[in-house]
């Protein structure tokens, strides 16, 4: 739709601007300040780009970054198709639909550290239902010693935790498809697959972009769940970016390097989200143009 030019709209945005700037801009500026100095207690001196050089060449951080990307792409590759699948399975109306919705949404509303605790209790070899059962079946399952076990467990935990979000977004997208499309598909004798491919999937593109964006963001900043479940171990096999950062900043008090690392982290996020943003905006523009051409729909 054609928007009206109206500069006073800035006033409507102002409160948002002030509140978010307070929480975002001041800390960000401080982080930039930190990143160029060596800070020891109350004294600090300027070191220029030293911390950036060190951080970019730090093999530990490089591997944390790679691990982070590997993790994010793995869970996206699993959760997006799984979420679509579950959305297709969910009942469409009636009390069953409500019940399934509530049950499926549950993991989303569990505090992130509690998610870690739940899975810790669930997967421990001695007292955990899953851990105990797997050991009984003869596999020596151990997330504190075996890196593969730890990885798989964290990925399954993340699937448990976040697939509901994808499923709910898709469910909502599917519900918005008018019944007539399915009638038309039956009349045209489209197979189930063709119905999915040509009716449901195209209508899901919008919500899927949102799902991918949200999932990418949150997987990229995952912290509390693996921290509680594995503590980043064994070794550093499940230490993701946020945790490396927190360790540097809080445990080791390396303010300068952790600030430099934060900025690099932030620039990555910025680039990725810009690509998503441009994609979403172009989709909306295309949709608007299409409605302009296609009349009411």
């Amino acid at each position, binding site marked *: 739709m054609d928007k009206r030019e109206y500069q006073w709209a800035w006033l*409507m945005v102002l409160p948002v601007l002030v509140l978010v700037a307070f929480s975002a801009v001041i800390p960000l500026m401080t982080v930039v300040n930190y990143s160029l100095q060596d800070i020891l207690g109350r004294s600090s001196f300027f070191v220029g780009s030293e911390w950036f050089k060190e951080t970019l060449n730090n093999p530990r951080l490089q591997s944390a970054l790679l691990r982070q990307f590997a993790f994010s792409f793995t869970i996206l590759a699993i959760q997006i198709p799984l979420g679509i699948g579950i959305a297709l399975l969910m009942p469409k109306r009636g009390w069953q639909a409500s019940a399934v919705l509530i049950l499926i949404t549950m993991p989303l509303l569990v505090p992130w550290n509690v998610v870690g605790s739940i899975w810790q209790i669930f997967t421990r070899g001695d007292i955990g239902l899953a851990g105990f059962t797997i050991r009984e079946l003869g596999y020596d399952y151990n997330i504190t010693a075996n890196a593969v076990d730890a990885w798989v467990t964290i990925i399954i935990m993340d699937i448990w935790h976040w697939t509901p979000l994808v499923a709910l977004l898709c469910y909502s997208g599917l519900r918005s498809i008018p019944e007539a499309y399915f009638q038309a598909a039956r009349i045209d004798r489209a197979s189930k697959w063709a119905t999915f491919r040509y009716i449901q999937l195209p209508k899901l593109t919008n919500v899927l972009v949102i799902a991918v964006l949200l999932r990418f963001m949150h997987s990229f900043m995952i912290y509390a769940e693996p921290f509680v479940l594995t503590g980043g171990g064994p070794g550093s096999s499940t230490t993701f970016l946020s945790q490396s950062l927190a360790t540097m900043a809080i445990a080791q008090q390396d303010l300068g390097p952790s600030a430099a690392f934060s900025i690099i982290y932030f620039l990555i996020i910025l680039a990725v989200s810009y690509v998503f943003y441009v994609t979403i905006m172009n989709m909306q523009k295309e949709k608007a143009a299409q409605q302009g051409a296609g009349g009411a729909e």
Partner: protein
Amino acid sequence: MSGGKRGLLALYLLFTLLPIYWLLSMSLKTNQEILGAFSLWPESLNLHAYIRILTDPSWYMGYVNSLTYVLMNMTISILVALPAAYAFSRFRFIGDKHLFFWLLTNLMAPPAVFLLPYFQLYYSVGLFDTHIAVALAHCLFNIPLAVWILEGFMSSVPKEVDETAYIDGYSFPAFFVKIFIPMIRSGIGVTLFFLFMFSWVELLLARTLTATNAQPIGAIMTRTSTASGVDWATLAAAGTLTIVPGLLVVYFVRNHIAKGFALGRT
């Protein structure tokens, strides 16, 4: 719905519920029972962990603190996000697109990046260890999220609605409150759901900005692991109780979810 579909869905629901069942079952056992022989369900319903949490102020105040800052955050976020989202959905102004993008990037800012400056910022303005500090800090990601979701819903309301209302003699505030807000009810419901969700589940900032007076339940739970071992039963009971508010919230918005979760963007 065919049997196969039902079966697959049931399988997924089982996957969702098993860990939660295990948490619940642990919370009803005694620590001896937990560490003793493995059993699928508690021998008897043992409520002592719950009784302890619900009678000891140093425990239950954690829930009160968490709920307090969550509600504060929801109120602030929705109040400032509504006009902003309206501005973004209806008007063009200098820098609108870039401002919107900047807001979105804050959704992705990992709290870990900001921990220390946050602590110092809130300490220096004298808000450390207050509920409002956490509520404001959570605005970092919740306000952008609210603006984004609401903008989607508002843009799906035709602009002619606004124009008709003005022609009918409504002032802007009257139109906004009496006509526009009811039209995007689902959107507001879903936005509140998300605001609750992200404020309720976040712990890192909440823990950093509080010490004793406003400590969230998530931070208090770490007390269960001591040098002498982990108090599993209490940990499980406290964990179980953190799920309850979320369940209530889903129950209230369940009818909006089907429509609203697409965030107005289908």
